[in-house]
């Protein structure tokens, strides 16, 4: 008979072999030991091994079929949606009246040049106005910074 205490010592140090661990399990399962703590642990390990799986596997074939079917269905649905959108776009482009744009059309090249010139001049004016405001704001910020520095220094 093996010395249980020595085996246990080895066990807690992680030095026992599988056979020695099995021996310990058998020992604590068949004997009433004064070492309740160790007995509880080894009996727990033995009990845990009795847990079994009672569930049923859903046929993997069916599952895979479902996955493939879903994927194919999604692809088909996407194609239908894309075709539908293409059809609607085609009809929209075909049916859109161009009449509301016709009234803005300038046929005289001289007049068109004049209008473009005026538009560019307006753009330049507004750009300059924005630039002036920006430079004024920068100047104001600089003034504030100088005041802050003076306050800090005093």
């Amino acid at each position, binding site marked *: 008979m093996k010395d249980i205490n020595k085996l246990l010592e080895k*066990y*807690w*140090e*992680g030095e026992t072999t*599988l056979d020695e*661990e*099995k021996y310990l399990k058998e020992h604590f399962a068949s004997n009433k030991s004064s070492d*309740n*703590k160790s007995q*509880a*642990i080894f009996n*727990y*390990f033995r*009990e*845990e*091994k009795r*847990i*079994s*799986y009672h*569930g049923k*596997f*859903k046929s*993997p*074939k069916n*599952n*895979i079929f479902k996955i493939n079917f879903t994927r194919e269905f999604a692809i088909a649905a996407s194609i239908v949606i894309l075709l539908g959108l293409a059809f609607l776009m085609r009809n929209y482009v075909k049916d859109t009246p161009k009449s509301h744009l016709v009234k803005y059309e300038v046929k005289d090249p001289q007049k068109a040049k004049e209008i473009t010139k005026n538009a560019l001049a307006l753009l330049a004016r507004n750009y300059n106005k924005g630039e002036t405001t920006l430079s004024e704001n920068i100047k104001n910020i600089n003034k504030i910074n100088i005041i802050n520095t003076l306050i800090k220094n005093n």
Partner: protein
Amino acid sequence: MENFLLAYKDKFYRFALRLTGDRDDADDIMQELAIKIWKKGEDFEKIENKEAWCMTVTRNLSIDRIRKNKMREHESIKDAYKVSSDSRNPEKILESDDLMTKLKHLISSMPENYKTVIQLREIEEMTYKEIAEIMDIDLHKVKVYIFRARKMLQQLILNSGLKRI
């Protein structure tokens, strides 16, 4: 393929249950494992150590599941008030009268690596080499994990009041 799964299903289930601590999660993992095996098709037959392969897949699926559950708990304020069944709360462990439940809670409160080695070594009685293959670590690390897991178990038992049994 089906015969293999039927022969080892209990072992895979126990492993998933140990890691997730939840029967529903373990059930789902079993279904996912079956699908993965089926998807492998003929390649599954070529796997040298099918049991180790399945245990590794079970472990990975369980870790994924734990991560997802944790994320869900963080996201939901409601769930934040729920105490999970693995009870990291030592008071909960002490409250439990049933010895087996106490031990189960104690092991559940351990880090994943330690739970894994306890399940594989103490319950499934696997060799260090088999455990190393499943966990994809070297033998030395397996020995270290087993040593530390046992020390932790010893310590947890002392702290939890099991010594008074």
